Structure formats: structure tokens, C-alpha cells
């Protein structure tokens, strides 16, 4: 059969994700600590939550934020500050860790969400840097600057102490499960359909009478919710808040993970986080210069597989199905 000159499948058209896919993914995740180390598995979960929110914004709404570390780091710091100075309970800490980034997203969104894609990327990056420098020196009396926020007590969930890797992992797995189902639910909802309509053709959606700016704004605030939650969990997981949570490379990492896994696919962030962290861990054992290799791999992915791992598999799969239907 001859190759069609242009792709048969429109870009990023995802078959409706079935709930069974989510369940299978979660069952696999439940056994992940047997395959790799538990801390690495936990980190994969946290970045997955972060990535699910980021993907709602980049993959489904088509808005690239290059300063998402601001929301992640602010979530981590808000929770960390509450734990350290107020001895807050885990739920209060998480609630603060979610609320503060959402407020920040309201502010940044109000200023910049109207901008064209690249302009918004640049502005969000600049705001992210502002937060980084604020935590680095002017606020170092409370954030402890470069050292990061230490002395965060061990947390308890319903009087189960999270002092061992396994309870920590399964606690965060439950949160991940909730967020995965929530994401799946959002994508099925009219709001989720709107997001995708905007990504495909913003002008047309506007002409249909939708307030695209408002929906993009909500998408940003929603993704800040995920990022803040992930940040707060990161603080609970590490027991301290490193300054690197606010660093630009954190924003870059979440971009790389999402692209690697496949933007605009439900499980893309999960696969991306897994593959990225696995690569990073493997390469950093061999050489301290892992960024060279991860960056180069990222460039190759952009050139050859811009749809990412899950996206490419889905494209191949639907191309195969269409080809079979024709014969």
C-alpha cells in the first residue's frame, strides 16, 4: 500500500480514553516499587500529578507556560512553611500548597493569558524567575535561601506515619489515582471538550461565541491546582523544600516530560515522567553531565516524534485501524 502524502489522522486526536486504561495504569503503578526503587517510583508519581495539570494546559488547551516551576515551587514552599513554622497538619499544608499557586495563577493569568502562545511562554518564564530570585535572597530569612527549607517534621495520615518509603508511596499513589480519574472526568466534560476545541481552532471557537480568554484562564488556574498539589506532596516526600523547585530547569523538566510522553494524551505525563526520571537516573550514574544527553534526546524527540511516546503509539495504532477498515 502506498504511503499517504499527508497524515490521515489529524494532529493530537486522541481516541476517547477508557476508564479501564486508567485502572490498568494504576494497577501497574501499584507494583512499581518492585520494579524500581520506591523513592524513584514516588518521584514518578509526583511528577505525574504535576504533568497531568501541565498537560491540561499545554496538551489540551494549547497554552505553553514556561514558568510552571513557580506554581510547583510555591506549592512546595507554602506547604513547607506551614509545616515548619505553624506545625500544620498534612491536610492544612496541602490545602495551602494548592491555594497559593492558584492565586498566583489568577494574577499571572489576568496579566498575560490574552497573549499569543510564545509571548505567554516568555512572560510566565520571567515570573517564574522573579519567584526564584525572591526565595533566593530577599526572603531568605524565611525560605533559608540556597539551603532550602529544612526541619520539616514527618507527616501523618490518619495516624499512619509516613516515615517509611512504602506508606509514603501508597499515600501518594492514592492521590495520583484521584487526580488521574479527575483528569479523565474533566476531559469527558463539556469544559474539557472546550479546551480541545480551542487548541484546534481558537478563532472558530471564538466565532461560536465562547469566551476563549476565560476558558484559557480557568485552564491555567486548574493546572496551578495540580502543580501546587504536586509541590506540596514533594515537600512531604523529601522532608525539605529545595530551592531548585523554583528553578527554571524545573519548568523545563515538566515541559520535557510532557512532550516526551505525548502532549494531549491522558497517560502521556505518566509515561513521560517515568521515562524521563528513569533516563535521568541511569545516565547520572554514568556521568554527571546527564543534561547533555537528556537535552539532546529531547531535541531528537522534537524533530522525529513531536507527538511523544503515547501520541506516536496512538497515531500508529489508529493508522493501522484505518488501513484495516479500508481493506
Amino acid at each position: 500500500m502506498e504511503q499517504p502524502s499527508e497524515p490521515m489522522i489529524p494532529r493530537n486526536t486522541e481516541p476517547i480514553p477508557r476508564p479501564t486504561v486508567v485502572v490498568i495504569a494504576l494497577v501497574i503503578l501499584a507494583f512499581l516499587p518492585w520494579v524500581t526503587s520506591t523513592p524513584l517510583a514516588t518521584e514518578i508519581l509526583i511528577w505525574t500529578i504535576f504533568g497531568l495539570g501541565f498537560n491540561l494546559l499545554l496538551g489540551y488547551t494549547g497554552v505553553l507556560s514556561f514558568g510552571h516551576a513557580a506554581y510547583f515551587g510555591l506549592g512546595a514552599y507554602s506547604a513547607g512553611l506551614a509545616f515548619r513554622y505553624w506545625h500544620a497538619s498534612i491536610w492544612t499544608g496541602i490545602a495551602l500548597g494548592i491555594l497559593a499557586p492558584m492565586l498566583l495563577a489568577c494574577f499571572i493569568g489576568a496579566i498575560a493569558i490574552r497573549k499569543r502562545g510564545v509571548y505567554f511562554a516568555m512572560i510566565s518564564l520571567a515570573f517564574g524567575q522573579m519567584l526564584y530570585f525572591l526565595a533566593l535572597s530577599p526572603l531568605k530569612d524565611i525560605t533559608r535561601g540556597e539551603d532550602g527549607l529544612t526541619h520539616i517534621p514527618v507527616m501523618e495520615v490518619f495516624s499512619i506515619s509516613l516515615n517509611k518509603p512504602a506508606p509514603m508511596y501508597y499515600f501518594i499513589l492514592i492521590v495520583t489515582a484521584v487526580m488521574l480519574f479527575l483528569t479523565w472526568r474533566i476531559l469527558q466534560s463539556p469544559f474539557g471538550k472546550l479546551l480541545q476545541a480551542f487548541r484546534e481552532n481558537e478563532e472558530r471557537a471564538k466565532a461560536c461565541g465562547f469566551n476563549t480568554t476565560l476558558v484559557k484562564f480557568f485552564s491555567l488556574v486548574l493546572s496551578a491546582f495540580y502543580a501546587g498539589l504536586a509541590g506540596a506532596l514533594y515537600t512531604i516526600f523529601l522532608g525539605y523544600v529545595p530551592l531548585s523547585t523554583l528553578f527554571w530547569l524545573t519548568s523545563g523538566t515538566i515541559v520535557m516530560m510532557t512532550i516526551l510522553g505525548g502532549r494531549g494524551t491522558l497517560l502521556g505525563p505518566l509515561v513521560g515522567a517515568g521515562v524521563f526520571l528513569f533516563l535521568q537516573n541511569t545516565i547520572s550514574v554514568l556521568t554527571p553531565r546527564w543534561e547533555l544527553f537528556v537535552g539532546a534526546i529531547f531535541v531528537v524527540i522534537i524533530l522525529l516524534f513531536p507527538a511523544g511516546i503515547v501520541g506516536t503509539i496512538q497515531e500508529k495504532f489508529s493508522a493501522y485501524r484505518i488501513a484495516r477498515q479500508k481493506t
Partner: protein
Amino acid sequence: MFADLPWNVIALQLFFGVALGCVYVLLASGLSIIYGLLDVVNFAHGTFAMLGAYAVFVAVSMSGSFFIGILSAVVIVGLIGAVTEIFLLKPLYGKDPLLPLLLTFGLSVAIPDGMKIIFGLIGKPVNYPSALSGATLLGPMIFPNYRLFIVLFTLVIMISLWLFLKKSDLGMIIRASTRDSLMVQVLGVNVSRIWTIGFAMGIGLAALAGAISVPMMSATPDMGVDMTMVAFVVTVVGGLGSLGGAIVGGLFIGLVVAVASFIAGEYANVAMYFCMAVILLVRPRGLFGELGRE
């Protein structure tokens, strides 16, 4: 706050701001040209400036002349830019406009680590060229010669850039391609080559910015990101794709950073971003941005 300071100290600080601003002008005008012509936000802009700084270090240690160093930095890094455009960016045109940004981002992660392998983690210093060390007395004021050189040098570069774009045939084609590349193509111009030239020119300007700033601060692998951020802030403040915006924005941000580091050093970095936020609140398209280009 300034009452107990002699006025010439303040004036000197402002002059430092102008000199810093000139480096920013070179950086941002390169970014602006690339964006205006190719619609590419070059995330690796500062990374190319960093390559320029290292190129000066290598060329100066080989030839001993600072001016040969600057010249070779522009030529070498400009060529690297052309190669990057031909092999990495060209395949992405006409696809999702975010892909070139993501690709250059990947470069900005990978290249600094590569430089660490070649040159090590420690910064590489370049001495002030002997002709430009020392200071000049102008009335009651003392100006460091090297910073005077930066200001004059930038002035010369910007005037020649302006003349090139306004008066030369190639400049006219470049400006026309910025407006409507399809029409230029129809008129029989190889637009693809114009894009390569434009990208190389923008990268050359970035390399120039990196090159002239090495004597003031050593070349380090990680200097690129800060320069990219500055270039972004200046471009956002000045207005995307506007050369005049890059000049005014660059000088303005240079002054802001210099004054802030003088008054409250801790806030020097924050001040730049804060200014950007305020300007965006008042004037969302930047100082010189065209409507519809935001």
C-alpha cells in the same frame, strides 16, 4: 536616600547602567530580528551568547588580540547559528509554532553541559584589552574606558544594522520577508536562504553581546540562561519583533538593574521582572509593540 551621595557617584552608576543596557540591546535586538523574521522564539539565545564568550576566550588565548577575538566570535557563532537553522529549525517550519521554541530549549539544556565537558566548570576570564583598560577623566567624572568602548561600539553596531536594514538591497528583502514572506517568495527571492541569513545575523548579535561582556565577567557555561531571561524581559518590555523596542527596552532594563543593585543589591534580579510586570499591566503590548503582534 541619595542626599548624602555625591552626584558624580550617582552619575557613574547611571553610566554603568547604560553600558549594561548596551549589552542587553545587542542581545535583545538579535532575538527580535529572529522573532520578526522567522516567528521563532529562540530559547537558546543566551546559550549562543555564552558560545560567543567562549569563542573570545579561545581566540584571545590563541591570537592575543581582543578585537580578533570579537570578530571570530561573531563569525564562528554566526556560522553555528546558520547550521542550527538549516538542520534543526528548517524541518519544523509550518508545523506547530511551539516546536521551534521547544527545540531551542533542548539546545539550551544540552549545550551548556557540553561546554562543561570541554572547558570545565570554572569560568574562563579574559583580560581587558590593554588599549581599553584604565579610565578617562571627563571634567569631574571618571569613566572606565572599557564601558565607554561598549557604549560607542553598540552605537556603531546599531547604526550599521539600521543602515543595513534600511539602505541595502538585502536589508530591504529581509524587512519585506518580515512583513510578508510569501509575497517575497513569489517575487523570486529564495526566502529560505533569507531566513538562514537572518537567523545567523541574530545569533551573531547574541555572540557579540556575550563576547563584549567577557572582560567584565568570566565566560561560564551557565551564563546563557540569565542572558536568555534578560533578552526575553527586554523584548517583552520593548515589544515583540520591534528593533526600536529592543534598544529602548535594553537601555531601560540596564538602568533598572544598575540602580537596583546600587540601592538594594538583593533585589537587583527581582527588579527587572517587577518592571516587566508593571509595564505589562500598563501597556500589554510593550513599549513599541505593534498591535496584533502580541
